[in-house]
């Protein structure tokens, strides 16, 4: 292994970390606000990819594919919340986990039914094909673009959460949704919006990632596990925590792969264990959920 190989691998870690940060911020605001661990979140990532793929096939336009993928998953998220998840707010965590896990399976199998198990690919947009020289090494241009796109998406999410009235309500809801309701704000409507935005974050990541990795119905499964670990490392309900956790997890997974890819999950879970031992609420978590 040489130096440029290491740096290239760190760039790979950055791409993966950025995607994980975006997907995890969706999962963490949903769990923080609703108290529901959405195990269908990986399926939202996958469906975003397929929705974008269909839109790309129909129009040949990458921007349309990204917008369509994200928008469709947002609508799907709102539907899931309205039709199914809202009936589980008053029920035990096991029930919530089982129903979202089941939903995830249903979505994966429906997509498999429609598209088969063979992988599909979405090419990068023409302006982002090829490689870019970083001086010491060359690197696929589109992967650099992914980091930029995800950074912009995270910035928008940050502005919505920290600079708007809706964001203020969501942050208050993450802390104490009962109190938000007592102050005359229909917290169930907030839940619906948060579920939609959270799902959209995953769907957006799914379509942006499609040109990097090929698209299969189970592409969301490993992402779901990694995302869950990221949320735990960063601190449940913490948006900055999801970003920090995502970047850390991306580097761990990527750098371990230099030595032996088989150990990357071992290292990821080891990191999570250490964080939990030192800071049980996660790196930037402010409180534990009861």
């Amino acid at each position: 292994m040489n130096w440029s190989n290491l740096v290239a691998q760190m760039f790979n870690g950055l791409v993966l970390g950025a995607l994980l940060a975006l997907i995890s911020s969706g999962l963490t605001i949903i769990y923080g606000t609703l108290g529901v661990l959405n195990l269908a979140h990986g399926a939202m990532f996958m469906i975003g990819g397929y929705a974008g793929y269909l839109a790309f096939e129909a129009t040949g336009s990458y921007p349309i594919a990204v917008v369509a993928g994200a928008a469709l998953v947002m609508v799907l998220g709102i539907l899931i919340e309205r039709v199914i998840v809202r009936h589980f707010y008053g029920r035990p965590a096991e029930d919530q986990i089982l129903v979202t896990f089941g939903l995830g399976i249903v979505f994966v199998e429906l997509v498999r039914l429609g598209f088969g198990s063979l992988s599909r690919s979405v090419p990068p947009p023409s302006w982002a094909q090829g490689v870019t020289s970083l001086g010491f090494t060359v690197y696929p241009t589109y992967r650099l673009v992914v980091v930029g796109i995800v950074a912009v998406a995270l910035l928008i999410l940050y502005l919505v959460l920290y600079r708007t009235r809706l964001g203020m309500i969501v942050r208050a809801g993450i802390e104490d949704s009962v109190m938000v309701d007592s102050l005359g704000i229909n917290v169930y409507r907030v839940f619906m919006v948060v579920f939609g935005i959270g799902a959209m974050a995953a769907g957006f990541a799914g379509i942006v990632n499609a040109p990097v990795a090929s698209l299969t119905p189970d592409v969301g499964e490993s992402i779901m596990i990694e995302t869950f670990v990221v949320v735990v490392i960063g601190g449940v309900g913490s948006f900055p925590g999801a970003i920090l956790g995502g970047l850390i997890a991306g580097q761990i997974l990527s750098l371990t792969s230099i030595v032996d890819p088989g150990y990357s999950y071992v290292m990821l879970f080891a990191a999570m264990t250490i964080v939990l031992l030192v800071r049980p609420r996660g790196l930037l978590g402010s409180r534990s959920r009861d």
Partner: protein
Amino acid sequence: MSLLEVHGLNAYYGDSHILFDVALEVAEHEVVALLGRNGAGKSTTLKSLMGVVTPRTGSVKLDGMEIAGSKSHVIAQAGMQLVHEERRIFGSLNVEENLVLAGHTAPNRWPLSRIYEMFPRLRERRSSRGTDLSGGEQQMLAIARALVRDPRIVLLDEPFEGLAPILVHELLATCRNLAEAGQTIIVVEQNISAAMSLADRAYIINNGHIVESLTAQQMRDNPDVLHRHLGV
């Protein structure tokens, strides 16, 4: 007609029956104390009125509108506010954001200047995050957050608990001003003398049953009633 009319209210935590046919009435501009020992059901009564705990049976009418079983935001929009014993300040929001959030859906919300006039300390601390406030400041903010909605009735759950005597004195004066200005209040308080200095009337609750209903004068004239039910 009373502003608040409660009849046959029964509430449960899981299988345990906490409130038994609670009935009470509060007229507009009246301050009513709800007294009782620890675990008598005082907080549960307030939470059931606010919809934080959903009563299983019974009727709660606010200005003639049935609100029992409604969600808290509906009850809040009907004009009720509960100041929780635990204060429940949003620690990640600053003082002003806590107030803005509270007034968000209130049609006749108070201007913040009016809140800051009543609680000058909150004006000084308006950019401080909720987590950085002292206990007394948190209590002021909790009360201010209810008032900013211009509620018809405010439920205060142990507002003076855990505060230094000087702060109790200060907050008590604020509450008395509110009462004199015509604010309808139900106050739950362990500090009987503080509660009685505010209240026109009191209900005594014991094991989830309302056992006495007295005017302030009757309470002063019959200290043995307090002694019997509250051990004071």
